């Protein structure tokens, strides 16, 4: 298979941002687009064929995430839409006068900003759970925050910046038990949403195992194209649609289905079924090699949890230098990584995730995230370890003429 990430000698280590589309996925998608362009809502043969294909995809995906009912899988445009739909949809459907939502301070902006927006409009109350130094949410903290009007808990499965895995199953089990009691007491149900965008290809995403009611997934994080994702909505969940129009997706999400995207998503998941585990192991080993090599550089901290983390992400703090400077230098050498504290993205603030882990502004400035993927080669890691120490040394030693 062609190594797409090292095209023209470049090395791509930013798989948490997005992954290259797998050629096998692309092939399936193109074949589909050539033949089955029909609108799945159409009555005629073209429509019927497209409908058949996407419902087959839905069934296969539902099976992968451990759902008995394909109708629990709603296709969306990606992670952000899924998160928005889960939060706003549950709030809209709730009969509670001013509902309460619990989330964590390290969530993705798609969750945080949505909840903050609802809060600003006075539609909900919100509690933002703190995390420990590894970026992990504590179940005991969560228990204390649940109130009579709490209707939703939204905690991400894996943090995108540091790769720490959250105790989703524990929270899910606890909330399930709690909901039994609340039902008897006449309290509203507490729904549990998890943003599984970063976890999907590496961890157990069986919704029964996790005991979640809602789960967001994004295709382009696991070798499907951008613009396709899904929201798992457990049967019986009171949720209203936020995109209004036709009756597609069982009335839960209006708009003609992104049929090629759905086919691609299902193809990408088919590959995960077969190769996911093996991939994870291989990537984990490469990442360990990278971590070992980088830790030889002085004054470097690996962020995140020592054990509860996904195999692909290694995020470091290079003390005393700006992560942005490292990033640009690596880019000029053809190596693509990212920093949580990107000035270039327009926000000068240091990453909210690293600050929440207890690092100060200056430390957080020196952040660089390496995220590996299916197409990462050992030679890529070697090249990084060749180039990086020199860059770090140069930046540290640099004493500008003009101070």
């Amino acid at each position, binding site marked *: 298979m062609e190594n797409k990430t090292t095209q023209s000698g470049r090395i791509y280590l930013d798989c948490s941002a997005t992954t290259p589309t797998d050629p096998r996925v692309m092939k399936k998608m193109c074949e589909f687009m050539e033949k089955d362009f029909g609108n799945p809502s159409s009555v005629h043969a073209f429509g019927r064929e497209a409908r058949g294909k996407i419902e087959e995809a839905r069934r296969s995906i539902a099976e992968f995430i451990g759902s008995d009912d394909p109708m629990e899988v709603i296709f969306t445009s990606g992670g952000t839409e899924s998160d928005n739909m889960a939060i706003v949809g549950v709030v809209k459907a709730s009969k509670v006068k001013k509902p309460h939502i619990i989330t964590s301070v390290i969530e993705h902006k798609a969750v945080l900003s949505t909840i903050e927006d609802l809060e600003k409009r006075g539609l909900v109350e919100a509690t933002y759970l703190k995390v420990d130094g590894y970026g992990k949410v504590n179940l005991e903290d969560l228990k204390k925050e649940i109130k009579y009007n709490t209707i939703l808990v939204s905690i991400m499965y894996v943090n995108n910046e540091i790769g720490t895995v959250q105790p989703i199953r524990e929270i899910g089990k606890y909330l399930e038990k709690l909901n039994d009691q609340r039902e008897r007491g006449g309290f509203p149900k507490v729904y549990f949403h998890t943003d599984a965008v970063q976890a999907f290809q590496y961890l157990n995403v069986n919704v029964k195992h996790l005991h979640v009611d809602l789960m967001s997934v994004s295709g382009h994080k696991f070798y499907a194209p951008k613009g396709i994702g899904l929201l798992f909505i457990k049967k019986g969940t009171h949720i209203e649609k936020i995109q209004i129009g036709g009756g597609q997706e069982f009335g839960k999400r209006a708009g003609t289905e992104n049929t090629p995207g759905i086919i691609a998503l299902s193809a990408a998941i088919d590959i995960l079924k077969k190769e996911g585990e093996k991939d994870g192991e291989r990537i984990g080993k490469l990442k360990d090699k990278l971590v070992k090599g980088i830790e030889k550089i002085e004054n470097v901290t690996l962020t995140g949890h020592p054990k509860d983390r996904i195999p692909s992400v290694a995020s470091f703090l290079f003390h005393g230098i700006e992560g942005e400077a490292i990033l640009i230098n690596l880019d000029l050498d053809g190596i693509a990584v990212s920093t949580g504290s990107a000035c270039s993205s327009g926000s000068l603030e240091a990453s909210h995730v690293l600050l929440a882990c207890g690092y100060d502004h200056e430390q957080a400035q020196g952040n660089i995230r390496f995220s590996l993927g299916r197409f990462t080669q050992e030679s890529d890691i070697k090249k990084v370890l060749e180039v990086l120490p020199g860059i770090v040394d140069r930046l540290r030693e640099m004493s*500008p*003429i003009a101070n």
Partner: protein
Amino acid sequence: MYCEIVTFIENCKLRIENFIIMSKKSLNKKPRVVVAMSGGVDSCVAAYLLKKQGYEVIGVFLKFWTPPVSVCGTSRENACCDMRALLLARQVAGQLDIPFYTVNVSSYFKKEIVDNFVHEYESGRTPNPCVRCNEKIKFGVLWKKARALGADYLATGHYVRKCQMSNIKYQKKSKISHLSFEIDSKFDICNLTFSLMRSKDVNKDQAYFLSGIDARIIPHLLFPLGDMVKKDVREIAKKAKLPVYNKKDSTGICFIPDGDTSSFLSHYSNKLNKSGNIVDKNGNVLGKHKGLMGYTVGEKIGGEIFNFQFSIFNQYSIPNIQDQKDKIKKDVPRLYVIRIDVKKNRLIIGENEDCFTDTLIAEDVNIIGSDLFTKKTILAQIRGGHKPERCHIVGAGISPARIKGRPQGSPLRVSKLNIKFLKPVRAVTPGQTVAFYDLKGKLLGGGIIK
């Protein structure tokens, strides 16, 4: 002793760096240059030319500070770095196939440029934020960033030329002939090998705006447009199919997009919004001002006094005028601000000849050309559009504390220069920058008018 060692080390560093640049050239490795790209035609053409000349070019867009929409009253963002400019710069970078990055300097810009701007007005002075921005941001922060990227050079689209300095060796404790103060050899201006020269396009020349930058980085600067005129630059952009070829020149202060300085100031300061008297130079009250914000020395004064005591016009020997308002307006001598007295909250006005003076005190003078003190007659430019006038340095102060305690790597400065012009000049404005040139237009330094 310490200073000498520091100087020595700095010299060594410079030489080593130059050596590295030279050896890179000889190894056929392209020298790396960071170009400050604002999305305007000048900086885009600068990047284009450097790329053509064979440099490894990296484009950097500086995101400055912008007032919130509620302040400037329009939805326009900071005129020179709004989203459209960013997109244009990025598009051109893509077209030239060069790496392009955005550096957000907004909080530093706010602190160093905008806050200083407001503070200067509060002190009754008229600052020049562009000079300060060049010193602190473009040739300060950005130079640091460029070095972090391993760049050999920093380039901008300024209309100014880089030139070699005549190699003057100051003797230890040399006495400058016509001045009665001594220059210490520790004062390492003799190491300045490069200076800047006014551009070929006299109308666009921007040397004045660079008079505050640290002279020691000049060897690392490139100004591809210094030998060109604006028309040619646009022509090049057009030929190269750069989408910015017909973009309007930016004018005014970038963080006051609507140009309304006094409304901007009144939003960010409440110190000078009390109304007070307008007086003549003898203290006679002529009218009322609504607050001293936004007045500038030399500025014409109009309506403020017409609606006030008409009798005051008698002192300008105007006949009795009660019934001939229109005629007065025509006959009244034009009046101008000659001083802003913040302490007494007074605006002092006078006639045009009162605006003229032949002396000037420059403070916190940055030295760029090593022969600032050796030339008898030099030129001084006292504001952006001003034609430089001949003058002498008649006195200088180097506060000893400043030099002894000068931290390593700080720019070369003297605390004060007394200037005497050969002919009186109009509207010497406190707070504005004065730039010094030799008679050929070589930039020697610049300071702030006291």
